[in-house]
């Protein structure tokens, strides 16, 4: 297999369009998500490693956040008043790096170092080396408590800055999340939004067969969060919900984003085998063909 090299990282760079018409924003998010998927598939194929299934399930959420929700841009990435996005499911670092590159936080050419010896682009993100990363995640169940801490700091500052955290659904089996949700509710952190990438699959099996989360909506409601369910591949639904802060005054928001692992690639979608499988050259070509043919690719699941 050809090793990852500079010719494999040729994606366009997008810019936030905070003031654009919503339809234009959504079209841009859809195109960004499509390009991020194309680049991420190449990255995983040529690097020979990665978590492509979870990457693909979360890319629409990432593209929506960076494309039109978060008030951050490459030049304001250190602004204390920036919105925070914490990627709790740190194993989709590849998707995060490509997203950061797509929106100008990371030089596109740096993607060619993904997972290479001494690269700053580790299999899990490191904020000390990658601008735009807020926490060094990887072990599961860490992002939500960190997000709660940041949301408390914003409240102490009487700041309008918002906190977003993306967790996997399997990850919610970690008890620390529920500790954090109790605290989020107790402190009435209504500028905190928890996004669950509800793809219903974990490493080797479905969440249901492993340790079922249902009824997830009732559980989160019982913990004092305002629950809303969206199609996690529908940019319009995502943009509407993620922009609505606070969603319910006095309550943290718990967005159950229904997704498919491997979306929208036909042979990967909703298939447990693609948790961290690496596409062959032929599979990469098929996947890229599907993404090129799709119009628009980020549409309904």
């Amino acid at each position, binding site marked *: 297999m050809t090793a990852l090299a500079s010719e494999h990282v040729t994606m366009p760079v997008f810019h936030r369009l905070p003031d654009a018409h919503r339809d234009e924003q959504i079209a841009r998010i859809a195109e960004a998500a499509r390009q991020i998927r194309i680049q991420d598939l190449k990255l995983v194929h040529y690097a020979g490693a990665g978590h492509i299934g979870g990457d693909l399930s979360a890319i629409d959420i990432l593209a929506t956040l960076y494309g039109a929700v978060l008030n951050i841009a490459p030049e304001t990435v250190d602004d204390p008043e920036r919105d925070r996005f914490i990627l709790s499911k740190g194993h989709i670092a590849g998707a995060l790096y490509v997203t950061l590159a797509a929106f100008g936080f990371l030089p596109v050419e740096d993607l060619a170092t993904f997972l290479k010896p001494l690269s700053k682009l580790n299999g899990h993100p490191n904020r*000390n080396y990658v601008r735009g990363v807020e926490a*060094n995640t990887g072990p599961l169940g860490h992002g939500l*408590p960190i997000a709660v801490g940041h949301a408390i700091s914003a409240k102490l500052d009487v700041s309008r800055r918002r906190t977003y955290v993306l967790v996997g659904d399997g990850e919610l089996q970690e008890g620390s999340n529920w*500790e954090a949700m109790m605290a989020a509710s107790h402190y009435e952190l209504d500028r905190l939004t928890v996004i669950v990438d509800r793809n219903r699959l974990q490493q080797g099996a479905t969440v249901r067969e492993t340790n079922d989360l249902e009824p997830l909506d009732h559980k989160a409601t019982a913990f004092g969060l305002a629950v809303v369910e969206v199609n996690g591949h529908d940019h319009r639904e995502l943009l509407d919900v993620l922009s609505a802060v606070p969603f319910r005054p006095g309550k943290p928001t718990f967005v159950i984003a229904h997704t498919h692992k491997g979306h929208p690639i036909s042979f990967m979608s909703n298939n447990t085998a693609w948790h961290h499988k690496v596409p062959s050259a032929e599979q990469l070509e098929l996947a890229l063909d599907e993404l090129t043919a799709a119009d628009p690719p980020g549409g309904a699941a």
Partner: protein
Amino acid sequence: MTDTRVLQGGTTPLEPTATSRDPRQHSIAERPRHDCRNAYVETLAELAHENHRIVGVVNDSVGSSKLDAFKRAFPDRLINVGIAEQDMVGVAAGLANGGRIAFVSAASCFLTARALEQIKADVAYSNRNVKLCGMSPGMAYGELGPTHHSIEDIAWLRAIDNMTIVVPADPIETAAAMRWAAEVEGPVFIRVSRMSVPELYPKDYTFAPGKAVTLRDGEDVTLISNGTVLWRALVAAEQLEDAGISARVISMPTVKPLDTEAVLLAARETRGIVTAEEATGAGALGGAVAETVAQNHPIKIKILGVPEFAPTGSAGFLLDRYGMSPEGIAEAARALII
């Protein structure tokens, strides 16, 4: 005088109050004793008045950390997440992300054991400005037993990169270490004991991270200690002097990074080193000293610590049992150089 702080930093020589009078007339053992938690809460309140970025984070440990007055003074700035240590440390890292300086205050046994992965990933690896204050460490909870003892904390945290570990020996050093920790950006672990200890440092003592303090000079043998055992080592040195043995006493408040220069000076200038601490010894101060000596200038070492799940008893009783009474430390030193 082999005070490495004087040699390396030009710091004012530390004149321990012990040497200002005849130690046999007024032994350190007879001095009034203090609970370091009082110095901890007073200093935390002072720091909070001086700097609005300072917040406390607790796991229901308001009373056990003596933070009731702090809570009254700064009701919004004491974040109590309830009995949830993993959340507590993650929240502290998130507060640091928001520009706050979080002083996490929790029983050391629960803070370090329950939240070890958060300490590693969210604080140390993420390089967040979090101060982990391990309350009532070692065997301070005495009869409550090994579930509540925290003899392993030093060894666990010493294995983590980007972590400074401080074990103050008296209220003055506790306050000084906290003042330093509030100033420096990055992760720090400070042990704060509830066991009563005499004052060992002058009131104007300033904490120098990574620096040993030679509290008593000596040529025959060296005692290296910190925390609640340091005063015992000083009394042991008094007893050794009575027996005609000249013992150097090195206070090693910073276990990581270790002042290897002070250790190697002792290895070259004296005939043996005894380490004594209210911790496992293995992997802790004793381990750190042994690693340094064995790799650079091997001499005889005796590591005193708590090697097992301790039986029922008070902390004082148990320290004596594990050879860390003044007499026990003196005997270990004597045996080493005979």
